């Protein structure tokens, strides 16, 4: 693998499978009574989070601890981003203390690219603006593979706010690389221009997107987007794009329903669907730890090779 994990765009399908295969072994570690291996003993990992995050930060921290890395969390309040120290200065100060890896979550697309240019530490992108969230896409792929044993040839429908979603971009890149038939659906105001050039089918009809789907992946509607007048109301959004049991009925009988969280119940997804038998939402969270362990392990392996 390269020095950093900045996005799925930089990974070959072989590298993706390597992460997914490694995560199988990592998942087994989490099922032991003593959930800890010495793999990253003596390595220092900094979790540098410029955006609030419960799931992703906790998941990384547990993954790091299970691998015996020394780990610390730095949470920078959004309000201090513009008036305080610059990202580059913060990074160089952390760098001066010689960590091995920095896990970065930041509200600006490309923030991790800036860090990768100025740091010797390995950078793992834990979500940058509207750009990518590569470990989310990897854990989603792991979860799909667990249930379907393959990704090639599956019909995957991704529905919601496509424009602002880094989860969408990483998943589209990953799933198309591995040969899935990817459909995306959302209000035309929330479709990134030219997205069909990434090899996906775009439709405003949720019914068409979910018809005979093997996987349905819902994206969070960020309620603050209402300010931009992207759609008239949450009520109307739910009526047109919300995933109801009736819509799930159009998919294949063994469909799985995914959501990267946090969910807005009754906005993009009906509670009955989120809690239904086909929902794998909590499995995604569990798999996140294993997949992040795999990423940390594989990137650290390159440290050893140096």
């Amino acid at each position: 693998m390269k020095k950093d994990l900045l996005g799925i765009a930089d990974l070959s399908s072989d590298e993706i499978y390597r992460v997914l295969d490694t995560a199988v072994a990592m998942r087994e570690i989490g099922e032991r009574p003593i959930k800890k291996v010495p793999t990253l003993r003596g390595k220092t990992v900094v979790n540098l989070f410029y955006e609030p995050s419960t799931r992703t930060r906790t998941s990384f921290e547990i993954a790091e601890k299970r691998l015996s890395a020394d780990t610390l969390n730095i949470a920078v309040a959004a309000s201090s981003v513009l008036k305080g120290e610059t990202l580059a200065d913060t990074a160089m100060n952390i760098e001066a203390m010689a960590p091995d890896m920095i896990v970065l979550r930041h509200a600006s697309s490309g923030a991790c690219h800036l860090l990768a240019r100025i740091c010797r530490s390995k950078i793992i992108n834990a979500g940058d603006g509207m750009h990518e969230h590569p470990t989310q896409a990897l854990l989603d792929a792991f979860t799909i593979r667990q249930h379907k044993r393959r990704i090639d040839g599956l019909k995957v429908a991704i529905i919601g706010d496509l424009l602002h979603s880094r989860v969408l971009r990483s998943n589209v890149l990953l799933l198309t690389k591995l040969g899935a038939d990817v459909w995306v659906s959302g209000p035309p105001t929330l479709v990134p221009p030219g997205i069909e050039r990434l090899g996906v089918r775009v439709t405003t009809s949720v019914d068409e997107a979910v018809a005979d789907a093997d996987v349905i992946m819902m994206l969070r509607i960020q309620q603050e987007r209402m300010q931009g007048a992207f759609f008239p109301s949450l009520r109307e959004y739910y009526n047109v794009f919300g995933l109801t049991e009736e819509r799930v009925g159009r998919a294949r009988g063994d469909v799985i329903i995914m959501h990267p969280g946090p969910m807005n119940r009754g906005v993009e997804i009906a509670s009955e669907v989120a809690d239904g038998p086909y929902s794998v939402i909590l499995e995604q969270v569990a798999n996140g730890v294993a997949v992040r362990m795999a990423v940390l392990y594989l990137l650290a392996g390159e440290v050893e090779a140096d």
Partner: protein
Amino acid sequence: MARRLLRGGHVVDPVNGRNGVFDVLVENGRIARVGRDLPRDAADDVVDIPSGLLVCPGLIDMHVHLREPGQEHKETVATGAAAAAAGGFTAVACMPNTSPVNDNAGVTAYILQKAAAANLVRVYPIGAVSRGQQGEQLADIAELKQAGCVAVTDDGRPVATALLMRRALEYTRMFEMPVIEHCEEQTLKTDGVAHEGFQAATLGLRGIPGEAESIMALRDISLAELTGGTVHIAHMSARQTLDAVRYGKGRGARVTCEVTPHHFVLTDEMLAAPVAYDTNVKMNPPLRETADRDAMLQGIADGSVDVIATDHAPHHYDEKQVEFDHAPFGITGLETAVSLCFDRLVHPGVVTVSRLIELLSVNPARVLRVPGGSLSEGAPADVSILAPDLAVTVSAAQMRSKSKNTPFDGWRLRGGVAATIVGGRIVYKNPEFEDFRI
């Protein structure tokens, strides 16, 4: 030297229909005579122009940000003037979005005083359309004109409302001054940072559609028709805007336009590679897609575009070493423009050298109604000596500008500047030309 003979150079002077080997006699800062085989003994000093160099009317960059007063950490009038001289420009027109804004005679006089102290190239201040560039009340435009401003603009943003633009176009008619417009419908731009298209979509950058520019251009062209005023569309980037300008010209509206080198050379693919999220490709208007870049080249070739101007926008490296979202818009341009014009316009055959001189000298002089643009007898001896075949490797570190924010660092280009002469005085000579004694 009271009388200096520039001997044996290839003169390109479209206004006087000259395009061949001529001698140019300069006397007391003015062009005294242009002709073949002028007598050597008519001059106190004879400069033999090496073969292959072009002797042209001084280039005029009608869109630069010199940042003084108020942002001297980015650029000063003196460093900007030095950059202009090194870039082959004998005159620049500087934008009013300084701090304080150039909306009164005091700021104009301050800029002119700094320019006189630098004593390099001519500096023409451009005043604000509205007081404080706030878009509410007209600035004292007669006072600005009297103090030396050659045009008005709220550049950095558009003239806020159609009514204010109407008033500005009407009011400036009595001075025959153009209103220079930064076309941008701000409710469409919102918080965009890059051209709205495939590149911004995949990189997760908020987009600015070309229509944010063309809608405002159409507003202003319509108002120019209504009022008989003169509007100059600054830094045109979108193909839709070029269509708007052609429409306006076809109807006889008094509209002219400019294009920057970066908009006819680069596209939004630079956002992804060679350096992803390079803040030195963040400018406003943004780099657009290939169809837009090609439209700019077409407009330059067919005469729809009047002027090439750089929108030289220096920023300190601290300001650019940040997240793409937070970086200021703009790149420097004065010291790369000539090389880019030769390499991308003249050598590939998009335009002739003569047409290039119209774009860089004749037309900016006409739009701003300032002296220059020709080597006519009696005109100020502002002369750019250009080297169309010079092999240039762009080096940001060696630039005269105080700021180094250029996406062209390290580029190898064919074409450059040999010397710059203002009022008969040499203000820049390229050290590459060792045998060129001037």
